[in-house]
C-alpha cells in the first residue's frame, strides 16, 4: 500500500460529461478530469479498439478522430472532448464488417501482432478522407505517426494505394452509371459496387442520393449494406439491426436496399472485428442486448428494414454505470461476452465481474491492483543516463570506506585491489592477507544461480 498514497478527494476533481462517439451520446459520470480520451473510451465506454501504446503521443496506436481531425487519444483530455464528434475504429468496422481500409490492410499483410493496426486504420481512413489520391510521399507523411514494430510499413502503404484505386474505380463506375440515366442511377451503381465485393464500396454517394453533410463517418463500411447515416447496432428484430438516427433524417432513400444479414466470412477478419459469424449464439446474444438500448432518435423511414416494428423504439432509461447505454456496439462472438456488452456491469463466463483498470493518476485505496502502482502514482524516476550511479567510471578515485585500507585507491575497472579477481582458486585469503568471509552456502532448494530452472521448480 505504500505505492498507493491516499489523496484527499479534492485532489482528484471529477466531472460528468457526455461524449459523442461514433454518432451516439455516451454519458460519462464522475470521471477524473485528467483521464485521457483513450482511457475513457477503453475503460469507461468499452470501446477497446484504440490501443494504449506509449501514452506520449509517439506511437499512434491510440489514434481516433475528434471533430474530423486525427488525434492521439492518449493526449486528449476526455473532459474537453465533450460535445465533440469522436469517431473511433469501431465506427469503421461497423457491425463486424471490415471497412475497405481494414480489409485492404488485412489483405496486404499489414497485420502481424495487430496492436498498431487500429491506429493505422484510422490514419489511413483519415488520409483518404482528406486526400482521395495520395501519393507515396503523402501516404508516408500521413502514417509517420504510427509506429509498427513487427510488420513494417510497406504493406500498409500498399493498402493505401489499394483502397484509393478501388474507391476511384467505384466512383468512376458510379459516375458512368449516373451519366446513363438519372432515374436508374443509384441502383446500378450500388449493384456494381456490391458486385465488386467489399474492397470496392462506393466511396461517394451516387448523384441521385442527396448529400447529407453531418452524418457520422460510416460511409466506408456502409454504402453497400446500409444507407449513410445509419449506425450499426444489433437489435431485437429479425434482421439483427437497429437503425438509430442521431442526426436529421436523410431525405430520399427511395432505393430499396434489401437488408441482408452479414454473411459468413471466409476471409480472416482483422482488428476488433468479431470473428465468429458461424456461431449462431452471437446473434442471439445480440438480440438480447436490446434491453439496455437507449435511442434518442426515431427510426429511419423507408422499407429497408421490414422486420422492425413500426413506430420506432421506446426509449428506455439508461442504467447508470452499466456502460451499455446509448448504442453500444456489442461485441459478438467472443466467448464470455454473449450475455452482455463489455463494460461496467459485465459478468464474464468465469463469474468474475468487470473491474476497471484504475484511471491514470488514480491511486484509490483498496484498488484491486495492489502491488502494482497505478498510472500516475508519484514515483522515483530512474536516474537519467549520465547520472552518477552504480559502478564508478574507470579511473574515478574510489572514495572507499573510512576504516578500510582502500580509501582513495583508483579503480582500475578490474576489481578493487586485493580482490582475487583472476585467480582460479579462491582460498578465502587475499594476497595482501585480508581474510574474506566466504559467501553463505545456498539453501538446498533455492533456485540455482544464473536463472537456471529446475524441473521441480513450480514457477518454471
Amino acid at each position, binding site marked *: 500500500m505504500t505505492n498507493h498514497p491516499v489523496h484527499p478527494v479534492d485532489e482528484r476533481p471529477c466531472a460528468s460529461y457526455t461524449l459523442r462517439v461514433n454518432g451516439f451520446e455516451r454519458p460519462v459520470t464522475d470521471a477524473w478530469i485528467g483521464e*485521457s480520451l483513450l482511457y475513457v473510451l477503453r475503460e469507461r465506454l468499452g470501446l477497446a479498439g484504440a490501443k494504449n501504446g506509449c501514452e506520449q503521443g509517439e506511437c499512434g496506436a491510440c489514434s481516433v478522430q475528434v471533430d474530423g481531425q486525427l488525434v492521439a487519444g492518449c493526449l486528449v483530455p476526455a473532459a*474537453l472532448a*465533450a*460535445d465533440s464528434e469522436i469517431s473511433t475504429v469501431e465506427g469503421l468496422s461497423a457491425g463486424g464488417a471490415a471497412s475497405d481500409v481494414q480489409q485492404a490492410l488485412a489483405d496486404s499483410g499489414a497485420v502481424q501482432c495487430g496492436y498498431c493496426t487500429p491506429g493505422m486504420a484510422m490514419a489511413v481512413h483519415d488520409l483518404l478522407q482528406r486526400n482521395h489520391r495520395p501519393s507515396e510521399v503523402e501516404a508516408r507523411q*500521413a502514417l509517420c505517426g504510427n509506429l509498427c514494430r513487427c510488420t513494417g510499413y510497406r504493406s500498409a502503404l500498399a493498402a493505401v494505394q489499394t483502397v484509393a484505386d478501388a474507391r476511384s474505380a467505384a466512383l468512376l463506375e458510379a459516375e458512368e452509371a449516373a451519366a446513363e440515366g438519372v432515374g436508374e442511377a443509384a441502383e446500378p451503381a450500388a449493384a456494381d459496387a456490391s458486385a465488386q465485393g467489399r474492397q470496392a464500396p462506393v466511396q461517394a454517394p451516387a448523384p441521385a442520393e442527396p448529400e447529407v453533410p453531418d452524418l457520422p463517418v460510416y460511409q466506408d463500411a456502409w454504402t453497400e449494406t446500409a444507407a449513410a447515416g445509419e449506425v450499426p447496432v444489433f437489435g431485437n428484430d429479425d434482421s439483427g439491426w437497429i437503425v438509430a438516427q442521431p442526426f436529421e433524417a436523410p431525405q430520399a432513400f427511395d432505393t430499396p436496399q434489401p437488408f441482408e444479414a452479414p454473411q459468413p466470412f471466409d476471409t480472416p477478419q482483422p482488428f476488433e472485428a468479431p470473428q465468429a459469424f458461424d456461431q449462431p449464439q452471437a446473434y442471439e446474444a445480440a438480440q438480447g442486448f436490446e434491453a439496455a438500448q437507449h435511442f434518442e432518435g426515431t427510426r429511419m423511414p423507408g422499407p429497408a428494414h421490414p422486420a422492425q416494428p413500426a413506430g420506432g423504439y421506446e426509449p428506455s432509461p439508461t442504467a447508470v454505470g452499466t456502460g451499455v447505454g446509448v448504442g453500444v456496439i456489442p461485441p459478438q462472438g467472443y466467448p464470455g461476452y454473449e450475455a452482455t456488452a463489455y463494460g461496467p456491469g459485465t459478468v464474464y463466463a468465469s463469474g468474475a465481474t468487470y473491474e476497471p483498470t484504475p484511471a491514470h*493518476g488514480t491511486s484509490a485505496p483498496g484498488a484491486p491492483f495492489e502491488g502494482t502502482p497505478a498510472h*500516475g502514482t508519484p514515483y522515483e524516476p530512474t536516474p537519467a543516463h*549520465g547520472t552518477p550511479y552504480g559502478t564508478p567510471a574507470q579511473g*574515478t578515485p574510489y572514495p572507499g570506506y573510512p576504516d578500510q585500507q582502500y580509501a582513495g585507491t583508483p579503480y582500475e575497472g578490474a576489481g578493487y585491489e586485493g580482490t582475487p579477481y583472476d585467480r582460479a582458486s579462491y582460498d578465502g585469503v587475499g594476497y595482501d592477507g585480508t581474510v574474506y568471509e566466504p559467501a553463505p552456502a545456498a539453501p538446498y532448494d533455492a533456485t540455482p544461480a544464473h536463472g537456471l530452472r529446475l524441473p521441480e521448480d513450480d514457477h518454471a
Partner: protein
Amino acid sequence: MLPTSLDEAVEALAASPAAVPVAGGTDLMEAVNAGRLRPAALIGLGRITELRGWRYEDGGTAVLGAGLTLARMDRPDFAALIPALADAARTAGPPQTRNVGTLGGNIATAAPAGDTLPVLAALEASVTLARPGVTREVPVSHLLTGLDPMRPGELLTWVRVPLLNAPQVFLKATGRSGPSRATASVALVLDPARRAVRCAVGAVAPVPLRPLEAEAWVAGCIDWDARGEEGVPAIDPAAAAAFGEYVASACVPDGYGGDAASGLPAEGPTAEALRLRRTVAVLARRALGRALK
C-alpha cells in the same frame, strides 16, 4: 470548462488561478499520463475561435492567435507568410500531434525541444499576456528565459511576429527519420532592411540560444547587394562554414553532457559537446546557405 470567447477564458482563469489552460493538451496530457501533473481544473481553449487564426497589423506585423494549430501553420498560405515557422510546424511531430498542438501551447510549455521556439526567437517575436482588463506585451525571449515570466492567472493570447519578406530557414536534426524531438535545431532569418542575420539554436539548452556575435560577424561577410542574383555567391563558402563553427562553439559549452557531479576538471570539450557542435555547425552552415541561395 470550455469557454468560447477570449474574455470568458480570461475571466475563468482569473476566477480559478490553479486551473490549467489547455489548448492542444499534447504536452499536458503527457505529463498527466506520466503522473507528473495533477491538474486542479482544466480550462479548454479549443473553442476560442478568435485565437485560431491570424491578422495583420500596420508596420508589417502578423498577429498570430495562440490557438493556431501546427497543422494550420503548415498550410501554404501561412508558409508564404512566415516560412520558417511553417517548416518548424511541419516537422514538429506526427499529424496526430500537429492537428491539436498549438503555437501558444508551444510557447507556454517552453519545452527545450519545442520546434517553434527557435524560430520565434530568431524572428524576435513578442507575445501578449492577458488578465482581466489588463494585457501586456513581452518579448518571447524574455518569457522563455524567465526574465519576465508569466504570472498566475495570465493567458497567452497573441503572438506578434514581424514580417520580413526575406528567406527564412528552419533546420532540425532528429534521432530518426520520422518526426521526433530535435537533438538540435537552427532557425535562421535574414533581415535585408537592417542587413542583419538572426539565428537561434534550439534543443541544445533549456531555451533557444542566440549567437549574437556570430550573427553580427556573418552579416558583415554577406554581399547583400549580390543576394538573390543568379550565379553570384552571396557569401564565401568558407565564411559560411566558419559561421557554422562559430555558432556551434557559441551555443554548446565545453562541458556539455559532462558529469558535473564527478568533480573532474574539464579537459577540453566532452565527446557529447563535440558531437553536438558538429551537428549544430552543419545545421547552421546549411541554413545560411539555403537562406542566401
